[in-house]
Structure formats: C-alpha cells, structure tokens
C-alpha cells in the first residue's frame, strides 16, 4: 500500500499538493504548526486511495513530503 508522510513543521500551507492530488487525499488541516501556519494533512477517510504517484512531493516547494510505495 502506498502512503505519504508530511513534515508539518516545514509545511507553509501553500496548498499546491491539495490541488494536484488526483485522489483528493490531502486537505487543509485546522491545526497550526510552530510557525503558526495552517498545514496540510491527510484526509483519513480517503488515505487508502493513495497510489504513490508522488505528484504532491514533486510540486511541494518546501520538500515536506516523503512517498512510500
């Protein structure tokens, strides 16, 4: 099963990964990180749909996402 790991302390909440994910697994979180930014998080209900396409990691400007497949 594919999965992604998001480094929330590096995330700046630009939402590029949210828009690029073909399965809609990533969503904005209500939680803040230490920088005081709303980060992205995984949509728990849909996380099994991850195919490991790595689009989110490719577009992430802050290199916060690791992809496992």
């Amino acid at each position, binding site marked *: *099963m594919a999965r992604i790991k998001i480094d929330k302390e590096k995330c700046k909440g*630009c939402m590029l990964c949210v828009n690029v994910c073909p399965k809609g697994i990533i969503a904005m979180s209500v939680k803040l990180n230490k920088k005081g930014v709303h980060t992205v998080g995984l949509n728990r209900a849909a996380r099994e749909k991850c195919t490991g396409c790595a*689009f989110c*990691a*490719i*577009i*992430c*400007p802050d290199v916060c996402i*690791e992809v*496992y497949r």
Partner: protein
Amino acid sequence: MEKLIFKKPEAMTDAVMHYCAGCGHGIVHRLVAEVIDELGIREKVVAVAPVGCAVIAYDYWNFDVTEAAHGRTPAVATGIKRVLPDKVIFTYQGDGDLAAIGTSEIIHSANRAENITVIFVNNGVYGMTGGQMAPTTTVGQKTATTKAGRNIRRDGFPIKISEMLAVLEGTTYIERTAVSSPKEIIKTKKAIKKAFGIQIKNEGFSMVEILATCPTYWGQSSQDACTRIEKELVKTYPLGVLKG
C-alpha cells in the same frame, strides 16, 4: 515490501527555506539538488548564488556555493571555471539579477562560450525588494511600481533573454521550461540534467530559463499563480528548446 520512493535529495540540507508559501524557488532548488545527486557530482559542484530572493541558497544546498555581487554571477562563475576547469560550475539567478543589472555579464559570458551552466529563474518581479517591476514583467502586469499595469509606452517591452542568447554563436543549449505542474516540473528536471551534461562534456554554455511563481507579488494564491504561468506567461515566454 514498502520502499521510500521520494525523499529530500542528499544535496539539500535540513534547513527550512525562507521563501513564501508556494514560491517556485523551492522547487527549482530541489530539482538542481536531485540532478546533482543523480549525476553523482556533489563533490565537484561549485554554485554561484545571486542577489535576490535566492541570496541565501547556500544554506539550503549541501555543496560548495559562493556569492557574487548583484548581477556579476556569470563573471564569478567564469573565473572559477577557468581556474578549476574540472569542477562543475553553475549560476543560479533570478530575473532582476540576470535580466536587469547583470545583462552585460550574461551576454558576454554566453558570447565567450564559457563552459558554465546558468539556471535562470524568471518570475517577472523583484521579489526581494518588494515586488517592483522587473524587465521581464509582462505587459499589463500590476506590480508595486506599475500600479495600473505595465505600460509599453512608459516601461518598454518584457525582455526575452533566452531568445537573445539563442542567436549568439557562443551558446550551446538554451531551453525555457516552467514549474507550474508536475508534468512541467519533470520536464524542467530533464532540461537541468541536459544542461549539466553539456558542461560535463565540455560543449559550452548552457542555460535553462525556468518560469516560476511569485504568489506574494502577483497577488494570487499559489494555485492561481501556477494557472497564470500556463495561461498567460507562456504567451510572452513560449516554452521549449530555443537552441541545442
């Protein structure tokens, strides 16, 4: 068995980048680092950082980086390459650095066919100083100094450095790409890899112009900024191989 298929490249440090959310610089930094990892040249690379938003790129890259005066990046790279010809030298420049104050240096470095690689990040504004108009600002684009949009009668036309350099006999490879979607980012990485390959084979001057987003000074969300590159910016700056 689960395998890690995408991670931070070895040629990048753990530092958190200072760029605004959604800035294209972070993507380009990573692509350069990935290419250096893939070519296995981390011990041989010397980068020359610009003045502009990417001025502290040396904090984010885990290889040798030096700094140059504003716009003089290709001149410094020329010196390093001539003294250390077996090193791989690249400059990383923004449009304010390369297309405004450094126009003379880039043109003459290209014309002398210096065996260096130039990574030119074009986002059409001066990001570091507060979003003023750059020579590459598109017609009608609103910036801090062109509140009603860039007017060609007052401010002139957007400068197309890649087209200008492509007509010089000294250049070997010039390509314009973008970092607006995963597809374009993969193409950009291929272009950067090809540009480094040309330098390693001693074939001469190579440059990749990368259209990048500046959501902060375009006054848009990061996604809208990517859409702007694909819908509007490519009309002024068409993507593709210009030479080589």
